[in-house]
């Protein structure tokens, strides 16, 4: 298992963002759904080793991120795209992706090929030498995805990766997700249930810091039959689970 979580919590002052999550995941694409403030981003940030849990057990890629040495090992095999991507506007796409390849300790001889492959896979090959300041929001998002996958991570964490992508790019991106999920554990936090339906083999729904549902997209759809609101079967399943939890 690449992700092993039990009883995980995270507090920010008085607010409990994550309130006891249990989760295990191996290779495949794992969708994380939930309304705003459900705790998805906080859970993802703990898995990205950028914030520590308040309590509970977290093991990533078979290692303990609480230990400094093991955290380094985890980070070598980790790809992370946060909700808000920071970037230096003066970098070109290639420089941006290369910087992260070098920071993630991709062997120097492999860096050029790794950078070219990542940039190509997100469809930015023709803009490789463009400055980030000149890219559209969707292109910046794709540059962010490229830096996340440049080290061929075994654990890839993507927070709202399709925000700003047009429908054609989203379809391409879902194909990329399925491709990456054959080798790695890919966790995708999103509000877009159609992305989950198309790309994820498993989905969890978070509400108030807990996992309210964990199963396949088909199982989530079945929860919405005759219940829930929404235009698509997955949306009805999503709303039916939320209604059940809130009632």
């Amino acid at each position, binding site marked *: 298992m690449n992700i092993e979580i039990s009883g995980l919590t995270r507090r920010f002052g008085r607010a409990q963002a994550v309130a006891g999550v249990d989760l295990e995941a191996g290779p495949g694409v794992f969708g994380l759904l939930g309304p705003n403030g459900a705790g998805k*981003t906080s859970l993802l*940030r703990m898995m*990205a*080793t*950028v914030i520590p849990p308040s309590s509970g057990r977290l093991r990533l890629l078979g290692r303990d991120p609480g230990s400094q040495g093991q955290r*380094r090992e985890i*980070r*070598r095999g*980790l790809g*992370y*795209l*946060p909700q*808000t*991507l*920071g*970037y*230096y*506007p*003066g*970098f070109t796409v*290639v*420089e941006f992706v*290369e*910087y*992260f390849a*070098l*920071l*993630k*300790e991709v062997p*120097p001889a492999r*860096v*050029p*090929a790794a*950078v*070219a*492959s990542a*940039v*190509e896979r997100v469809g930015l*090959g*023709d803009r*490789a*030498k463009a400055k980030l300041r000149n890219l559209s929001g969707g292109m910046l998002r794709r540059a*962010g995805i490229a*830096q*996340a996958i440049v080290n061929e991570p075994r654990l890839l964490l993507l927070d709202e990766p399709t925000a700003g992508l047009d429908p054609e790019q989203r379809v391409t991106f879902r194909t990329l997700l399925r491709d990456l999920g054959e080798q790695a554990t890919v966790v995708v936090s999103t509000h877009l249930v159609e992305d989950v339906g198309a790309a994820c083999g498993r989905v969890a729904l978070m509400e108030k810091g807990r996992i309210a549902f964990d199963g396949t997209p088909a199982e989530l759809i079945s929860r919405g039959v005759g219940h829930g609101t929404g235009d698509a079967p997955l949306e009805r399943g999503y709303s039916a689970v939320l209604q059940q939890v809130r009632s």
Partner: protein
Amino acid sequence: MTAADLRPGVAGRSWPAGLRLVRLHLAGRQVPGALAALAGCAVLLRCALHWHWIQGSGPSAQQLPLLIESAAAMIIAVTTRSPFGEVERATGRWLPWLRLGTTLALTAAAAGMLAAGTVPAHLPGGDLALLRNVAGLVGVGLLSAAVLGGHLSWVGPVGYLGLAEVALTSARTTPWIWPACPPHDHAAALCATLAFTAGTLAITWRGARDTTHE
């Protein structure tokens, strides 16, 4: 685009990967701009000495040099801000070393440029006081960056500057207000060294506070 197309650009004009990483890190932290601003501080100090904007050698004569030294410290502290945020923090072992190297190099550059700016005139307090003041103020700036974030790191040096200016005008001395102490005051030098060491360790270990998610 293929790997072959990218090879000259990525492999970086045959630069080794380590140098390439350092170059990209310095560019991302806007270090070239910071060096230009530090050079501007040195020119300002040179002008102040050349046109005798600084009179005498008493405490009041140290006010303008202290202002320039504080500006240099603020410039260095602001470079601790990472434009990349959490993505950069979730990477391997090189980042702390890059932060340490950048901080030490910029501090050395600031001290060197300001000292060069005093030649051949005489700076009140001399180069020893200049080195002590710059190092201590940089430490205050780095601690400020660790607590408040890179974009607010100037708050510490500005607050400290206010305290030091008051101490200079009122001739009150304590080792913790090292700019108001004589150049050979060992306690003041120790306090400045402690501030610099604490700030450097904080920035090396944790980096500037990332306020994106708060």
